[in-house]
């Protein structure tokens, strides 16, 4: 068996070659990969580690499917310390972010968080971000690991005319996510903070296991859960303490492979797959993040306003396959045999038991929904290595947690 290398972006881009390339690359990551404060904990747990965006990260600890299912039914513990944390502080911080980002961050109340994006002049997405307003004049911006340096530079440039300071604080934080329906129950054992007071997309300075943390009810799995921004020196203690507190509830450590299938089922975009410099937020169905009516000008406004009023060139859709071969990133989408789009992310859905994918397709194809009964050789299909596999458009997300 030889590797034919169809990786989504949570995996390093291995050279195409024999299977052994995968294994040795995973076992012997490039020496310059950065370690998080928890990397040696993952090594002790026997994790398969991989170089992801220049960081040595756990891909899986055992079965990634079991990790995925644990997060859906119980809880999972993730090390996300590779994510970039940037602080923007000062009296002009709110105004600087209103100009730098597509959202209205001055309207964000302290203690709340928002999903937003930073775009280029042409409206292309530089990164998607979570912005926490910690105080009137203090924001914490969380960027994707691969984009953090670019985002930091762009913020510095865009904040230059404002009374605001941008600081890369990635090395000052370890980030631990506790995700799943039992996350709140587990966390409640370790904190006096009333977790019912922490709403979705809120943050709170709290003590967990006696350590100070920035506790946020955010996540990337489609489940309830928390993200804990902690001092690097407290990371191992908190990881171990959380793992012990949740062991009776089925809490397991979960790696990047599970995180990718969890977010895909939840219909959440991944930068490098659904989002890139070549797409606008509108293409991705996320036009609501762009606040064209905010008072200030902002980078990308003219292009985004034009795009908002124009006919879409492509649309992000969800699809399920009717056979078992898995659509993967970059595969063509066919409509009556002609290419009409491309898969951005695909996997066998552990929850649904069928292959699922997100894809950009032509809007006229996206408007077609009655493809299920299309005769053979027509309708929607994914070109899976030369063989058209019938597919069906479905609304996103693929999975919504029971309320």
């Amino acid at each position, binding site marked *: 068996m030889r590797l034919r290398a*169809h990786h989504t972006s949570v995996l390093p881009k291995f050279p195409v070659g024999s299977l*052994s390339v995968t*294994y040795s690359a995973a076992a012997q990551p490039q020496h310059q990969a950065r370690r998080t404060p928890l990397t040696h904990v993952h090594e002790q747990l026997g994790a398969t580690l991989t170089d992801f965006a220049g960081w040595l990260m756990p891909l899986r600890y055992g079965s990634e499917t079991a990790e995925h299912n644990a997060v859906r039914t119980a809880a999972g513990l993730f090390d996300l310390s590779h994510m970039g944390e940037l602080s923007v502080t000062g009296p002009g911080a709110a105004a600087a972010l209103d100009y730098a980002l597509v959202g209205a961050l001055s309207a964000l109340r302290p203690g709340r968080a928002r999903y937003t994006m930073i775009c280029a002049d042409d409206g292309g997405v530089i990164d998607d971000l979570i912005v926490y307003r910690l105080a009137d004049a203090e924001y914490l911006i969380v960027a994707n690991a691969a984009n953090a340096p670019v985002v930091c530079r762009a913020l510095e440039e865009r904040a230059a005319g404002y009374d605001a300071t941008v600081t890369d604080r990635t090395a000052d934080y370890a980030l631990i996510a506790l995700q799943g329906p039992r996350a709140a129950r587990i966390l409640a054992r370790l904190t006096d903070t009333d977790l019912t007071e922490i709403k979705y997309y809120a943050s709170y300075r709290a003590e967990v296991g006696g350590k100070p943390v920035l506790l946020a009810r955010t996540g990337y799995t489609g489940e309830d859960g928390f993200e804990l921004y902690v001092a690097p020196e407290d990371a191992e203690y908190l990881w171990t303490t959380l793992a012990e507190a949740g062991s009776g509830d089925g809490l397991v450590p979960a790696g990047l492979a599970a995180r990718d299938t969890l977010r895909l089922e939840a219909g959440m975009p991944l930068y490098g797959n659904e989002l890139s410099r070549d797409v606008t937020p509108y293409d991705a169905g996320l036009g609501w993040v762009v606040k064209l009516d905010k008072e200030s000008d902002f980078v990308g406004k003219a292009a985004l306003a034009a795009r908002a009023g124009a006919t879409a060139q492509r649309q992000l859709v969800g699809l399920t396959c009717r056979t078992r071969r898995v659509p993967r990133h970059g595969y063509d989408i066919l409509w009556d045999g002609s290419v009409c789009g491309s898969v951005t992310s695909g*996997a066998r859905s552990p929850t649904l038991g069928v292959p699922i994918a997100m894809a950009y397709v032509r809007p006229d194809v996206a408007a077609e929904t009655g493809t299920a009964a299309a005769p053979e050789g027509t309708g929607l299909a994914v070109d899976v290595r030369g063989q058209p596999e019938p597919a069906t458009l479905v609304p996103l997300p693929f999975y919504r947690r029971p309320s």
Partner: protein
Amino acid sequence: MTVPAELYYTPEHEWVSISGAIASVGITDHAQKALGDVVFVSVPASGTRVTAGEPCGEVESTKSVSDLYSPVDGEVTEVNQEIDDDPGLVNSDPYGAGWLFRVRVDEYDDDVPPGLLSAAEYGALTKEEEE
């Protein structure tokens, strides 16, 4: 990593068990660990002619897809139907319940079909790759 002594191997990380004229084929423990959870396997149907070193199927895991190569010349006599319902058998029992297909091997001159590795040779190969 387990490498059972009684089996033969290929550099493509497949194992072969020879019983008379019939060869059973699967992927090794090393391979299943490197792939992660197997989600779908396609193998040649019974009656298909296969040629040593030629692709004859695919193994899909969560994160990758890999070609299967036939380790021998011959005709497929049986495929493991259980794998269709539960591809995870390839991970949980790669040398047992996770076998993939059986081939009636064409006649060959030596004690074993040509080109196969012993357990010691395969163990050395994977050790080399890990180092």
